[in-house]
Structure formats: C-alpha cells, structure tokens
C-alpha cells in the first residue's frame, strides 16, 4: 500500500522546505537587513568606562591656587554582595538607623539592581571616611569606597564668581552643548566654573571594557586599542588678587553691597566682592545640597552676586560721566561755570544742592570737587538740548549712546554668567514713563546720577577705568590667560574700546583733577593714601524699597568710585554699601584700604584700626540680619584655613 502514497514524499519535502524558507528569510532579515542588532550587541557587550580627567585649576595673579581638587569618597553598595556584615556598626559610623539603612539598600536595588554598585552615602566627610577606611574589611565586598573629585577652596573666598560644580541636570543633558556628558557627570553650574566649563573640564578618556551579562567588567577590549586617554583640564590664570579679594570679603561682612576693583590697563578684575558672601567650601562636598538650599532662602541673598546682578542709582559718582559727555559734545569747556545758589530752579521746580556759597561751581574742576548738583544737571540739559543734534529726542538719543559706549545700560560681557544690564534713560524708556511727552527737564536728575538710572557696581568700576585711561576701557574679565591654550577665546578681552574721543587731554584732566580734589580736600578725604595721588568721587544714593507693600524711602546707599594713582592708574574701584548712609562713612574707607593694599602691598599701621573697624561694623538692617543663618553657616568651614592665616598676616604685617 505504501506505493500508492509515494507522491506524499514530495509533500513532506515541500513542508520541510517551506519551514526552512521561513527560517532563512527571517535570518536574512535579522543578519543582513536590520542593522540595529549589531549596534545593540555593542551596547550589550562593551562597557564604556569614562575616565575623568582632573579639573583645571584656577590661579590668582600671583599664581596662588585659589581652589584645589580634593578627593572625597562615595560609599558604594552592591546589594547582592552584602552578606553577614555588622549592620549596626555601619549605621553607627554613618550616623543612620536601621530603617534608613534598609531604605537605602532598597533604593539602591531599585536604581541599579542587585549586582551593580550604586551610591549608598555620597561624599563622606573626612572623619566618616577615616572611620570607614579603618573598618572597610568588615563590610567588603558589598560596600566599596569610590573616589570622587571635588573642589576645595583654601582661602574660602571668591564664592560669588568662582561658582560651583554639581551633577548635570536633566535639562542640561538635553542641550546639545552638553552632548558628551552623561547622567551623574559633574559640570560647572555657575560662575567661572560654568563659563569656562569646556576648558576646565579637560577631555574625558574612554576605556572600553568587555562585560558579561551582569555588567561585570571582564577586561579591556582588544588590549585597550580603542581607549582614549584622559587629558587634564587647562588651568585658568586670573587677574584677581586673592589677598584683595579676601580683605574685601572680610570688610563686607555684615554689610550688603559690593566691591569691584579693576586693573584699568587690562580690564582684569582684581577683586569682586558681593556682600555678604559665603564660604565656597559650603557648596562643595557632602552637604552641598543642604547648604545650597539654606543659602538660597537666606534673607541676605548670599547667592546673588551683587557686583553684577544688583543695580543701584549711582548718585554723585555719576557726575564725572555727565561732565565727560558735555565736554565731548563740546557744549562746555573746562572753564565753564554755573551760578548755583543752593539749588537748580530752571526746570520749574527747585532742586536742592548741598552747597550754596557762590563760586562753588565756578568751573568743572571746582564743581566736581564740590559735587554741585545744579552744575551737572545743567550740563545734562546742555548736552541733550544741544542744537547740533536737532531736538531733545535726538539729543537724548545721542546722550544715551554715549552711555552705551561707556558700557552702561547693557551687559559688559564679563566672563561669568547672569550679568545684569542696568537701566539708562533712553528715549524708549522716557516715552514709556512720560507717555511720550518729555523734555530735558523731565529726567534732569540723571545729570546728578539719580532718576531713571541704575548701574551695576561693575559698570561703575568700568566707568572709572574709562576716566583713569583717559577715554578707553577693556571689557572687565577675570581670566587673563589659559595655560596651553591657543584659541582666540580671550580675544574680546584684549581689545581696547575707545570712548569720548573728542576730548583733549587737558579737558580730561579737569575732570580728573576735580576728582583728585574730592579726595585731597573734599568728601573723600578718607581715601587719601600717603604718597599716592588718589582720584575719587563719593555718592550718596537715595533709594526706595517696598516694605510690607508700601514704597518706603530707605537709608541712602553709601558709594565711592575712584582710581589711583592719578597719573599711572593701576586700580579702579567701585564700592557700594547698601543703606549705610553717607558715602564717606563706609564706601570710602573700604575702597581706600583696598587701594592701599594693592598699591603698596601693605596696610600702614595707622590705618589698621580702620580696617579692623570696617571688618567689625554691621550696617545690615536688623530685619535682614536676625533671620539670616549665613554667619552660622560660614563658621562651620573646616577647610578655609589658609584664608584666616593670610588675613592675620596682612593685618599684622
């Protein structure tokens, strides 16, 4: 009977071939058409281990490193390997209880699974690390200590501009600029750390390891043929003088305000203080998150860099600029005088002047020395109403254009983020405020530095550079050079910006001489330094603040701007102490101490009491101070000992 079924052999062969064809077509698709599988295989079997280079250092102008790379340790746990350990003892060392221990283990399992290591305790304090290290053999192999590089700041200074590093945020990770970063990488989040992230970070190396299915490294891939070595970050060299910075920060303790000192010849920032400030070590190490939270809610707003983020009416310190513009426009010459009798009445209202004796504004130099309000308001009006431009609007446009070229009303472009632009009375603003109807009298106060005018301390210091340099400035910047860097990165800070080009040197000198008189015999006598010709201008800026919803007049801001020495300026400075009253009381001595320290590298014995007094006085409002936790936060630092040593040396030198 089998013979009859012979053709069925063919059917069976066809069934076999049909199935085989199905398998072959599937294999064809898997192995030849779809390329994703080989990519998946790479991801599967090759472990890319990132080798972190050491982050670039930051040095001050005398090559003192103002921060260090410190090695802190994370305690890592591999849950599957935790066996028979003295849990109670581990909890004791870490200062946690059993519940917390269980919770952390559970978290670790949830994050990375049982066989991979994840963080159990991050950035151990040196004491905890010490204890852990001694007893590590008790907890291995489930627990391991893993090195994490962090920054430390021996001087405890410069928090406001150095910035801090932290784990990259998910939003940053989406940014193409951070495409090379991975979750958990550290990145500069503010200040110089942020601006120069690409330079400081260096180039990360990649080590390829072959791994097994449980992600356990099995050894280098192809003997390390594809590995890339890590290249250390480049070092930044700042114009900053850490001693100056430290002194400034100490003097701003208990005060709200800021100090900006610039080398007018280069635009390099010698010191930038935002008061009150915090120890940068607080934002590095184990308690970063906690401290950042506390600093962010502190009533004194220590995380705000007031030198570039706060804007103030410049008050009388603006008068040299009003004078310069008038001179450059040619509406006056240095001998121009104004008959002030204790006030300015030409605008239909009487605006008081501090002086009423005749001749106190007989010429530019005298008016400057006496800080005559009437004189400078009049200069503003002359400039704006200058027939040459044809109309007040065009005059105002021209006037604000001058301000812009001097770096006012826009961001200067300093090399740290979050700079504010300030505000100047441009026509758009005036149209808005006065509904389109305004003349040179409407905002006449700007001539004396009040009214629609707010500048950052950085802009005020930069304006001093312009006067010190007789009409030019460099964009203020921290970084003077980058080690082993040939890029044009710092090019924009090397270019000279010329302003007020129509003024003769003699005319310039009349403004400068006026400022010298202010220090020699005027309101800023406290700024005198033996043997050095200091030029300056005090200011006392009226200001208002909303308190409980009501706009209330606040105590005046104490301001001083200046530069020294007169003929070969080496330092230009702006000091603002908020709500501290008359300019001469706080701003002048603070600026003077810093200029003396910078120019003579010492503080004369007779002026040490002033320094002491400045460091101790508190001008902050009790409201702000009583609720602030800043001082207690700053007092816990255990790293910034070099700062204290240096300070002692300066004082007792």
């Amino acid at each position, binding site marked *: *009977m*089998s013979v*009859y*079924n*012979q053709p*069925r*052999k063919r*059917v*069976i*062969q066809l*069934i*076999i*071939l049909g*199935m*085989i064809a*199905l*398998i*072959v077509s*599937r*294999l*064809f698709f*898997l*192995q*030849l058409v*779809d390329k*994703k*599988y*080989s990519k*998946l*295989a790479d991801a*599967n*079997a*090759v472990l890319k281990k990132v080798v972190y280079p050491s982050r670039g250092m930051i040095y001050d102008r005398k090559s003192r490193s103002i921060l260090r790379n410190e090695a802190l340790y994370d305690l890592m746990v591999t849950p599957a390997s935790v066996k028979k350990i003295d849990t109670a003892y581990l909890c004791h060392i870490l200062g946690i209880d059993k519940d917390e221990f269980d919770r952390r283990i559970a978290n670790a399992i949830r994050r990375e699974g049982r066989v991979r290591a994840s963080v159990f305790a991050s950035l151990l304090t040196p004491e905890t690390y010490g204890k852990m290290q001694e007893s590590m053999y008790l907890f291995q192999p489930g627990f391991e200590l893993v090195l994490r590089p962090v920054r430390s700041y021996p001087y405890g200074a410069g928090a406001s501009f150095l910035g801090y590093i932290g784990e990259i945020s998910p939003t940053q990770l989406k940014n193409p600029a951070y495409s090379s970063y991975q979750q958990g990488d550290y990145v500069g989040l503010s200040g110089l750390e942020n601006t120069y992230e690409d330079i400081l970070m260096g180039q990360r190396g990649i080590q390829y390891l*072959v*791994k*097994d*299915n*449980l992600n356990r490294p*099995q*050894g280098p891939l192809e003997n390390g043929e594809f590995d890339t070595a890590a290249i250390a970050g480049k070092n930044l060299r700042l114009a900053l003088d850490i001693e100056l910075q430290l002194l400034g920060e100490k003097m701003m303790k208990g005060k709200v305000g800021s100090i900006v000192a610039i080398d007018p010849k280069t635009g390099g920032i010698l010191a930038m203080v935002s008061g009150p400030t915090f120890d940068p070590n607080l934002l590095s190490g184990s308690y970063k998150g906690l401290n950042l939270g506390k600093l962010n809610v502190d009533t004194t707003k220590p995380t705000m860099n007031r030198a570039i983020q706060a804007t103030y009416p410049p008050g009388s310190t603006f008068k040299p600029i009003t004078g310069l513009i008038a001179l450059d426009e040619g509406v006056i010459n240095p001998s121009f005088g104004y008959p002030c009798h204790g006030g300015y009445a030409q605008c239909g209202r009487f605006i008081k002047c501090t002086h009423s004796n005749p001749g106190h504004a007989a010429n530019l130099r005298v008016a400057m020395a006496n800080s005559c309000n009437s004189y400078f308001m009049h200069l503003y009006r002359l400039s704006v109403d200058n027939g040459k431009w044809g109309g007040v609007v065009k005059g105002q446009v021209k006037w604000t254009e001058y301000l812009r070229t001097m770096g006012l009303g826009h961001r200067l472009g300093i090399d740290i983020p979050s700079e504010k632009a300030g505000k100047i009375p441009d026509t758009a603003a005036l149209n808005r405020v006065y509904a389109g109807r305004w003349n040179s009298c409407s905002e006449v106060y700007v001539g004396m530095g009040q009214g629609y005018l707010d500048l950052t301390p950085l802009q005020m210091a930069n304006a001093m550079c312009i006067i010190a340099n007789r009409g030019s400035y460099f964009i203020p910047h921290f970084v003077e050079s980058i080690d082993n860097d040939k890029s044009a990165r710092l090019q924009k800070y090397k270019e000279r910006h010329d302003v007020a080009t129509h003024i003769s040197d003699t005319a310039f000198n009349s403004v400068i001489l006026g400022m010298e008189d202010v220090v020699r015999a005027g309101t800023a006598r406290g700024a005198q330094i033996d043997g050095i010709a200091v030029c300056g201008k005090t200011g006392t800026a009226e200001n208002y603040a909303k308190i409980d919803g009501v706009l209330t007049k606040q105590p005046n801001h104490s301001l001083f701007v200046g530069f020294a020495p007169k003929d070969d300026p080496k330092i230009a400075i702006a000091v603002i102490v908020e709500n501290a009253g008359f300019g001469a009381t706080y701003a002048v001595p603070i600026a003077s101490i810093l200029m003396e320290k910078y120019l003579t590298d010492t503080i004369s014995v007779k002026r040490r009491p002033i320094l002491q007094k400045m460091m101790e006085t508190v001008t902050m409002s009790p409201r702000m101070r009583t609720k602030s936790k800043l001082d207690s936060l700053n007092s816990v630092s255990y790293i910034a000992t070099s700062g204290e040593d240096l300070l002692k040396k300066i004082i007792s030198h």
Partner: protein
Amino acid sequence: MNRPQAKLTTGIDWPIFGMYLALVVIGIMAIFAAEYRDGDNIVQNILHQNKNWARQVLWLSICAILALGIWLTDSKFFTATANLLYAFGILLLLLVLAMGTDVKGSSSWLAVGGFRFQPAELTKLCTNLALAKYLSSVETDFSKLRSRLIAAAMVLLPCAIIILQNETGLALVYFSFFLVMYREGLPGILLVIAFSGIVLLLSALLVDKYILLYIFTGLAALVIYFSRREIRRKRSRLALIITIWAFCSAFVIFIVPFAFTKVLKEYQVRRIEVMLGKENDPKATYNTRQSMIAIGSGGFWGKGYLKGTQTRFDFVPEQSTDFIFCTIGEDFGFVGSMLFIGLYVALMFRIIYVAERQRSTFSRVYAYGVASIIFFHLAINVSMTIGLAPVIGIPLPLVSYGGSSLMTFTMLIFVMLRLDADRQMVLR
C-alpha cells in the same frame, strides 16, 4: 546472524554517517565557543569535566560505543523488541512523573548515580519503533479509522505524560509522528485541518474574539450563499458548515480564553504572548531578545570563531543547550547559518531518500519518523532563537549540549542505518 561476515562498515550509508559526525563535531565546537574564556586550559577542562563541551566529548565517546553496539545488533532485534521497548519507555515516563528530579521547573529528569537522564528523549525512539512495528504489521489496515486511532493513541500517550512533566516542548515533538502517518496514508485533509487549526489558534490569540466572531459569521454566510444549490441537494452540507462555524466561534470565545486562564501555566502564557509580540516586558522577552541580538549581530560573514561577544559573555541564556544556534549565527553569520541549516536539510532529505528505498514498511516508517523528529526539533529550536516561536526548551538535534538528547538522536540514526544496511531483508 545470517549476514555474511564482511567488513564492519558494509552497508553503512556514508552520507548520513558523515553528516551525523559533522553535526556532532560542529555542536562540540559551538558549545566550546559559547563557554571558552581566555586562559582556559583545554586539557584540564577535559580531565576535570568542568565544562559542558568537555562533558559533551565524553557523551560522544559513550555514543560511539552505543552506535557500535547498535550497528552490531541484528535488525530483527528492533522489530522484535519494539513493543517491549515502548512499554518500557512508558513505564520509565510514569516513574519519572512519580519521582523525577526537578530541573528548572520541569520534572522530567531521572537521576541515576551522578548522571541525570531525560527519559522523554529516549521514548521518542521507543515510540518510533512501536509505531513502525504497528503500521508494518499485516493485521493493520491503516485506511481504517480504528487503526488510525490506535496509531494516534500510541503517539499521544507518551506525549500526555510528558506534558504532565512540564516539558511542553518535548511533548510537541511527538506531533511529528503525524507527518509519518500522513506518509502512510493518513488523509491529507487532516494536514489541512491541522494547518487551519494553527491559523485559527493564532488568530484567536492575535485578534479580538468578537471581531473573529463577526468574520466567521460572515464567512459562513458567504459559503452558504455560494453553495446554496449544493445545500438544496444535500442538507447535511448546511449542517457541516454550521458545525464548523459553531466550533470556530466556540473555540475563540470559550476554549482559548479558558485554556489561557485555567489550563496553561502563567509562564507558558507569557512566552506565547512574547512570541506574538503582545507582551513587551523586557524580562519576559530577554531570552529571545538577547538571542536575536546575538544572531543579528553576526551579519553576513559572522564575527569569526570565538569572536562573538554575545554568546561568549553569557548574554544568551541556555547558550550551550537550547540556544546553541546563537553561537553559530553570531560567529559565522548568515553564510555559516545557511551552510549549517543546509546540512540539516541535506540530512533530512537523505533520510527521506533512504526511507523510500526500503522494502519493508517497518524500516520506511521508522526512517520517516527519524526525519520528522529531526525536522520538528530543528524548526522549533531555530524558530525560537530567531523569535519566530515561543521559547520552549527543545534541543537542536546532535548539536545542543546534553547527553540524553545526543544519545537519543545517535540511537535513532544508527538504528536507521542498521535497518538500511539490512534493507534487503523484509522485516515485520
């Protein structure tokens, strides 16, 4: 022994013997590739028997002795003892069910001394012999329903016991005997029905049951409409159509959901759902996914022997047993896979050729049985490694690591070679 004393190898079918040897050697090399780590001492591995490939070498030598023994046995022995062996096999299966050792969720293993043995493998041989014996006997008229039912029962009995042992994959292989029965006269319509059954099952799993109900109803209505003249002549036709419709509807609405919730184990349901692409749980798809990555990453020429990263670093589970094809797919790529599968196809076609040249029904049925078993193993095993079938643990014949499997296939093939060598004899 009425054979003339001649050379030991007289009558051996060399192509089959050669392909057998080639597959076993490829298998050992593949197991070696799956396990080898830099620095392994091969001699020590052999001496200490601490690697699967080394154990497989030992199994091969045992198989060599076994094969020689079979080769020296008279063909009549197999026909004579077929039923006895079948009874012994069933007994062994029941024994395992009662006192089996649990290995990875299946209780189909029997531990004897230091060795573990899987009788479900061996009973394939017993069943094949018994089926051949039954179909070749003079009393059997396979065109009768009764004979067919007896034959089916002979196959389904071990199958049922094996399912109870939680070895669904191995049980499935017993359905390969229906291919043999088809060759021996089982109506072709049964194959069509079986195929339709598979299509029905797949659609029941993939498509919403109520949509299927509408489709069946629509189809039934169309069939009735177009065959209305026939129906007028023959009322039973209408009844048939309605019965089929009712069965299909009941199948998708009641039977499949019932099977899924009550009969099948949860892991089985998951595996089926994974295969159908219904389930995206990475843990459930892990095996298939890793296996597909390994094979897919082989590309055209493969990564080269011992160069595969997936199989060598334990990404693919069960890589020396059920997933051994991954190693070949990864190391030797598309070309290697084609040659490898081609070798199997050649073996199966050669066995069919050998089967058709037999004079005795016993030998022919037996040989077809061998070809069908190899075919089912190959198709299901390779399909599961490339994501065409759910992961059911059945080995790749002669290649996968495992003593029971290697021994069973060795015996299957060598009994066939013996029978073929004596094809001039008429065996009953």
